[in-house]
């Protein structure tokens, strides 16, 4: 192996950056803090590129490196190690690449905020854990990254901890994720129990792995259980139904954090986990179906909420939940490549959208309500054009990146052996809504007249000033991401991307599926190769493009042509509109059904009744009774401690006397 193969540097460099800034950053100038953080991230990206080249040159499907034992208990052991294959390669390049751009952006964006060193320390800290997550060579180390990014997310959401809403959102994110982690942990216990190891190599790769030998489970079995439990974990981290509630609130964090953690990287960890575990899911069709259903439902559900939101970041948040749903839908029809493809393009255009939104918020003095924006195109042309590119990409209009990946997902949902016309149809409706709410965002923000506070209108309330374009340090990442949002999808032309991931996908052999599958055994259960013809594919492609344009058109009609209509429609829809506007009251439902009763039960029943009255009451009554009895026997003495110490001494003496007697017997 070439001495240049040092993948451990990729996570360690950001860790060093985090430590330096965390321990000494307080004494550094802002420039020095930025230099440390950016150098660490940039070097990490460079090293990642080198390692990727080494992997591609090597001709091996995967490279692995160990750094010693972490946990050992009897025969069970877990190592520190890195596993680099095509899947983790893409993830690490996206994380370090997009991460670096967002670091640059943050240098300017966070300029005027307190706690500059703290921010960059956390951000590097996040990079460390995210890279551990994607580069780990076993599930337990993945779990280290998994919980670690949760911690970084907690710290960064709560970055403005003086605000109660920010502190609440951070806590909510962490605890909701812990619910998911609970499922993940039990999946790990099942893996240990049945296969004795958590290492990818031994579980998912080596030919004689017990897991790979298992037949496809037509009814629920151990792999189904593992798959479903992993899905619970994935739902937490990737904000899927029913655990998505933390992500919209996470927008309390600084906007670069929303872009990096809550759009481009961390929230895709669940998708990564499912794709990494494709060998398990492909053998557990029930779990796979659950992934597809959850993803489809989430993508649709979140999109409906996105239509009604007026906070620019919240629209993007629900959009992220919805797009993650697409990725789950793809993974759920065993189209893992399509899922990862969309993960990548989404990282580009969604990071761009968030950074653009940050630029807008920056430019209008902190306002996030789109109803108080409008007409910003002429003030912030760079932001407008780059965001427009990203919007075209997410809406699925060719030749922008999102078109290729989303179209691939819809096609796979339609044609995969695990797919269904229903998934495709719902996905198509969601695509329409996506296009609609994204162009609604663009029109509300950038076209028409500026509706925000004008400096001249009221002389005293003018801390906003005129909207202004952001500095170049913020615009450069926008432009680069804009380029990626265009060309990023072209790698998918001609199914090149799909085959790129082939070495990672553990195909289920015909015999395995035949073992229990009767007639379905004739077609191997594998990714992608549907039976529909090329002409069907082209027809579906045309439909999805038309749908995207339809969404654009409707948004134009409602928000440019007839801007008075949306309010009338909202008023007309009445209860339904309020239901959606208030996010189906899900947060309130959870609070009323889960959190509130849990706390009341703990306080009133467990603590005040069981603990204080029943358990401790019994103890105290017994003590009182004993004291009453002893009061009869002996005289009351003052000084409780002394009297009891006396009793102990007397008791001990009696014991010794007894034993002496026993001994001499």
């Amino acid at each position, binding site marked *: 192996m070439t001495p240049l193969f040092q993948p451990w540097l990729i996570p360690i460099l950001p860790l060093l950056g985090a430590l330096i800034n965390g321990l000494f950053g307080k004494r550094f100038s802002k420039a020095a803090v930025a230099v440390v953080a950016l150098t660490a991230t940039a070097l990490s990206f460079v090293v990642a590129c080198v390692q990727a080249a080494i992997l591609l040159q090597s001709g091996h499907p995967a490279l692995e490196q160990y750094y010693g034992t972490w946990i050992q208990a009897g025969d069970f052991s877990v190592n520190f190690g890195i596993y680099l294959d095509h899947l983790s390669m893409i993830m690490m390049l996206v994380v370090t690449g997009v991460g670096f751009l967002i670091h640059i952006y943050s240098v300017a964006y966070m300029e005027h905020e307190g706690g500059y060193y703290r921010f960059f320390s956390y951000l590097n800290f996040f990079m460390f854990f995210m890279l551990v997550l994607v580069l780990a060579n076993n599930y337990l180390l993945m779990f280290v990254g998994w919980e670690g990014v949760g911690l970084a997310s907690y710290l960064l959401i709560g970055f403005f901890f003086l605000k109660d809403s920010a502190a609440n959102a951070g806590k909510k994110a962490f605890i909701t994720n812990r619910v998911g982690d609970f499922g993940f942990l039990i999946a790990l216990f099942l893996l240990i129990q049945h296969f004795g190891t958590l290492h990818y190599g031994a579980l998912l790769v080596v030919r004689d792995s017990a897991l790979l030998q298992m037949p496809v489970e037509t009814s629920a079995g151990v792999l189904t259980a593992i798959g479903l439990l992993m899905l619970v974990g994935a739902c937490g981290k990737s904000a899927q139904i029913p655990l998505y509630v933390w992500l919209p609130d996470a927008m309390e964090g600084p906007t670069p954090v929303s872009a990096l953690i809550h759009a481009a990287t961390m929230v895709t960890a669940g998708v990564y986990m499912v794709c990494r575990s494709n060998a398990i899911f492909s053998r557990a069709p029930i779990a796979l179906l659950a992934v597809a259903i959850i993803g489809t439902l989430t993508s649709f559900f979140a999109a409906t909420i996105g239509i009604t939101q007026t906070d620019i970041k919240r629209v993007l948040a629900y959009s992220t939940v919805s797009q993650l749903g697409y990725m789950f839908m793809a993974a759920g029809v065993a189209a893992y490549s399509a899922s990862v493809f969309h993960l990548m393009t989404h990282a580009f255009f969604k990071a761009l959208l968030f950074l653009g939104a940050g630029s807008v918020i920056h430019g209008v003095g902190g306002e996030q309500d789109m109803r108080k924006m409008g007409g910003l195109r002429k003030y912030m042309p760079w932001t407008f054009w780059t965001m427009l590119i990203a919007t075209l990409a997410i809406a699925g209009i060719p030749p922008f990146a999102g078109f290729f990946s989303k179209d691939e997902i819809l096609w796979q949902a339609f044609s995969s052996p695990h797919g269904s016309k229903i998934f495709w149809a719902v996905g198509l409706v969601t695509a329409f809504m996506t296009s609609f709410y994204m162009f609604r965002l663009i029109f509300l923000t950038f076209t028409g007249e500026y509706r925000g506070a004008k400096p001249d209108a009221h002389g005293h309330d003018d801390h906003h000033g005129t909207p202004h374009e952001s500095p170049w340090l913020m615009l450069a990442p926008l432009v680069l991401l804009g380029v990626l949002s265009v060309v990023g999808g072209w790698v998918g032309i001609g199914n090149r991307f799909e085959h790129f991931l082939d070495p990672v996908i553990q195909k289920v052999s015909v015999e395995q599926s035949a073992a229990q599958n009767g007639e379905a055994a004739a077609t191997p259960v594998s990714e992608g190769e549907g039976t529909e013809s090329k002409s069907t594919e082209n027809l579906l492609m045309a439909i999805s493009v038309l749908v995207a344009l339809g969404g654009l058109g409707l948004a134009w009609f409602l928000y440019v042509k007839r801007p008075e209509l949306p309010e009338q429609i909202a008023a007309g829809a009445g209860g339904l509109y309020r239901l959606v506007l208030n996010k189906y009251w899900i947060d309130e439902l959870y609070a009323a059904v889960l959190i509130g009763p849990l706390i009341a039960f703990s306080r009133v029943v467990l603590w005040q009744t069981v603990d204080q009255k029943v358990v401790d009451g019994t103890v105290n009554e017994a003590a009182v009774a004993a004291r009453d009895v002893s009061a009869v026997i002996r005289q009351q003495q003052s000084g409780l401690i002394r009297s009891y110490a006396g009793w102990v001494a007397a*008791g001990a003496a009696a014991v010794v006397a007894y034993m002496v007697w026993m001994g001499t017997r």
Partner: protein
Amino acid sequence: MNLSTLNPWILTLTTFLPALGALLIAFLPRRDRDIRWFALAISVITLLISLHLPVHYREVAPTNSGTFAYEQNLQWITSPNIHYHIGIDGISLWLVVLTTFLVPFCVLASWKSIHDRVKEFFILLLLLETAMIGVFIALDLFLFYFFWEATLIPMALIIGIFGHQRRVYAAVKFFLYTMIASVFMLAAIIWLYAQSNTFDFVELQHLIATGAIHMPGHTTLWLFLGFFVAFAVKVPLFPLHTWLPDAHVEAPTAGSVLLAGVLLKMGTYGLLRFNIGLFPVEAHKNAPWIMTLAIIGIVYGALVALVQPNMKKLVAYSSVSHLGFVVLGLYSFTRAGMDGAVFQMLNHGISTGALFLLLGVVYDRRHTYEIKEYGGLATPMPMYATLFLLITLSSIGLPLMNGFVGEFLILSGAFQAKAVYGIVAASGVIWSAFYMLWLYQRTFYGKITNPVNATLPDVDLRERSILWPLAVLALVMGVFPTLWMNSIDASVAGILGTQHGVPAAPALQVKVNTVLK
């Protein structure tokens, strides 16, 4: 000088040096400053001496189960047949070091907060140290019982004299509760002696295993329960836990640290060494309901912790939850579960010990533990907030912190024993995050709600030198647990070897830099 010549006497030296120090303090003039420095010196020297134990453990480590390292066996009293028999294995090794490690921090934590009867306080503290170490090294049941009871008096006095408002109530409750429970153990010990004419643990273990002691009917069960009750109260296992919150809330900081850090471990150590060690079959038979109680403790302790308005009570109830994990792991009778349980004893000593030290910092400033008195402390006390966060992460078992390794192994072992145990207990990861982060938020985040807090000074040099080492150790234990686990694992294997061990499926090892396929 060849250090290995120390080996036969090293345990005795470690154990009795603090008591000797206490004796010397008794003759020192009442100059508080000198007494503090002297106590600190004694405790630090004891720590340094005790480090000889792990450093040279490999050379003297017992090769077969049932034998001990650094062993010393002298006749103490001929009639009855009581021996000064001491020794440690890979489990008690770390509990001894945990004790000697925590005491210097307790001395430092009491530096300013104890200002009346300083002399008495440090005498009691050092006597307590000797007794605690004695519990972990004794291999003669009488000697063990002697040390066991000897911990009670100094601790009860520390709570009762140096504690807060309701200190006498708490001290008496603590004393009586554990004292009465110990009587059952004493009865069991005496019964065994009457049958065998020996108090020696190793001999008794052998005699019981070979059936040489006649045990008619349910005798084994009664003996098992006799020990069990004493240890379960100490742990404390639900529903025998209600002395703990009272004792913690009233105890001075040093008392709480040693109570949570070491005294509770005496209970879990006893459950392992004596209940499982002497009565393995009975322990196996009774494991289901013991594990059930442990799991109730995990969930119940966490939920009750959640709604506490008092920080110290919150941490006390969290101990009920954490110690539930330990008992669960021990009675899973799996390698992973028991390894994790022993490791978790150490973790809990570090992280909960540190939590009590942290609470002591704000108590010294504000003289209250009520959560609602605080809020927004991250602004005036950023360093304190950072340290509190690190320890919180250790306590909620974040990976790469010590708590995770212990909890993961325990849960994995419990799951192997019976899936439902692992599943219910694993919900603890949700509850612990909930109550600790909520505490953290209410204490540190938001704006200052009480103007008194706005000018609180951040941790000073003394406080930092207490807290940073613990935080760093929590991290080191999480990243390099094998430093501790190797000796623990070997001893657990020895204990399990005499049982119906549950073999884990073989793990596949791949060499460094392997290219797959």
